[in-house]
């Protein structure tokens, strides 16, 4: 075990997986010479060469479109999108091809593409460096999506994504890139997709979250400790979704608060709320509540703290249920 930050764990996963499988290559803007604007790809160029850590032209659709062709040539491409909101040009390729090509070939060709990108707010950045676009991706058939909140999971989920036969998108919470520190297994480490993690056990209220909202929920749970026992479920994998773990927690507590940074309408929280309504309505002792971003453009950074769900907003929601 080594103590790493979340972004160091991402880097560790890339080094480990490129060393393990010579068909894996990394491509993206500034991933080579610079080692990525967040240093997630540092050292790959020197270690694996310019053919396996590729600085591309500034073209997100080109990167993902080229990755489709790379798969046809037998590669397992890992595409970096430099930031959440700058991934939008790649959505055309994602929706029209990446999520469909395996199906289109009658299941005979595989497109084991990994897309990874930093996402989320709180970093005092200019416009469009703060988005939480997970809904666009999870809504796309043929795509899997995972979001780690700890360094160990950042390494393990990325490794699982790279080894997965389907296209997988990994959103990395940039707000905690360097503040989330933790023990990370050395060498190969895989966290299978489709399994939630109980970040904190509790019996009165279930807090469902992922990414940078997990530590927010953990702090809220801590603050509420005298009044309520909160269980924090780190969703980790949005598709495949660990319905069992979610429903088990709801069955135990009967109260649910869902937390995400993305805007509210049709955010992933709506999907979770619908799941609980369909399958656990008789377990509930109150309404399913959501604490989310608002349906507005992500605000200027001087006022962004009024947008991102805070510990106070989460505790307030929990108190409504008690």
């Amino acid at each position, binding site marked *: 075990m080594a103590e790493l930050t979340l972004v160091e764990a991402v880097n560790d996963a890339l080094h480990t997986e490129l060393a393990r499988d010579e068909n894996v*290559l990394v491509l993206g803007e500034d991933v080579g010479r610079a080692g990525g604007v967040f240093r997630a790809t540092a050292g790959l160029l020197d270690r694996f060469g310019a053919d396996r850590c590729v600085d*591309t032209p500034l073209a997100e*659709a080109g990167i993902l*479109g080229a990755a489709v062709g790379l798969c*046809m*040539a037998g590669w397992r491409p890992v595409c970096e999108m430099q930031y959440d909101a700058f991934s939008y040009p790649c959505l055309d390729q994602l929706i029209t091809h990446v999520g469909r090509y395996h199906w289109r*070939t*009658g299941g*005979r060709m595989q497109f084991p593409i990994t897309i990874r990108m930093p996402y989320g707010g709180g970093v005092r950045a200019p416009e469009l460096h703060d988005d939480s676009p997970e809904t666009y991706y999870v809504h796309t*058939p043929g795509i899997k999506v995972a979001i780690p909140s700890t360094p160990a999971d950042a390494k393990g989920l990325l490794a699982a994504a790279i080894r997965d036969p389907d296209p997988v998108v990994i959103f990395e919470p940039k707000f905690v890139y360097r503040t989330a520190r933790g023990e990370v297994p050395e060498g190969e480490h895989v966290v299978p997709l489709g399994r939630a993690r109980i970040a904190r056990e509790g019996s009165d209220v279930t807090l469902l979250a992922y990414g940078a909202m997990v530590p927010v929920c953990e702090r809220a749970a801590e603050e509420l400790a005298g009044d309520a026992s909160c269980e924090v479920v780190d969703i980790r994998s949005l598709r495949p979704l660990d319905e069992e773990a979610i429903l088990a927690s709801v069955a135990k507590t009967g109260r649910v608060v869902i937390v995400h940074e993305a805007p509210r309408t049709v955010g992933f929280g709506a999907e979770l709320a619908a799941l609980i309504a369909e399958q656990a309505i008789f377990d509930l002792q109150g309404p399913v509540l959501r604490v989310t971003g608002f349906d507005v453009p992500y605000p200027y950074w001087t006022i962004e703290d009024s947008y991102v769900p805070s510990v106070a907003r989460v505790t307030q929601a929990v108190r409504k249920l008690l």
Partner: protein
Amino acid sequence: MTESELLELYRRMVLLRTYDERSVVYHRQGRIGTYAMFWNHEAIQAGATFALGDDDWIFPSYRESAIGLLRGMPAEMILQWWRGHPSGWWNPADWNVASIAVPIATHVPHAAGLAWGKKLRGEHVVAMAFFGDGATSEGAFHEGVNFAAVMNAPAVFVCNNNQWAISTPIEAQTRAETLADKAVGYGIPGVRVDGLDVLAVYEAAREAVDRARAGGGPTLIEAVHYRAAPHGTADDPRAYIDLARVEAERAHECVGRFEGVLREAGLLTDELVASMRKDAEDLMRAGITTAEAEAPPDPELVFAHAYVDPPPNLRNG
């Protein structure tokens, strides 16, 4: 080119022409769905691909739907695509023919990626992508061609400039004097050829393929002609096109033109022409018969192949 190569090239044009003309009839008879005809595009498709080896990849748009015939793909497979039957979704790796790209220009970066990926593996494979004049206005065209150029990928980009994108004429598509000029912006050669002259198309493609294989990077070929048929079976061009011009264009269509050249050279006889046409017609007859005899697809296929390893709740609807 040898005599037999010239005759083979002609045979391929006849095959494509027959496929196309029969498909329009099948559509009218309700035996296939909406269809995008490629009448008079045969010189571009047969000519350009004649420069490829079997290991080279073809990335077709809907306009080149039947290009797999030139690789021996059964007619029924392509007919099934137009009949909306899942058996029309072929395995690209079996034919080195990518799936038919419906969203305009989005397959251009795929060709760039395949060419680059093969080059990284030390394989000398060329990728050839087909797209229209309208496609050159799309971002994906730009990103794909630029990507291939920067990676020095062995790709050949064949623009079928039929001067129309449905009802939008080329003047409303670009202010560039020629589409081949766009190559300058990517630092690659751009060539303009007569899209009805199969030998000119072949010559340009051969040069581009040779250069790509030798490590000289991609080429943009603009094959110019004029769309002498509707955009597709659902289109009525009378609303926007000058029918006299279309008639004039049809008078010098590409298959007859090449046939004239071969006859003048004494290579083609009436018997040979008749037997090639008959072979192609037989192939189509057998193709549609096979396609129609195939059992309707199992509705279970709705869930098949969305994922290699599907999430457990895929069937929740």
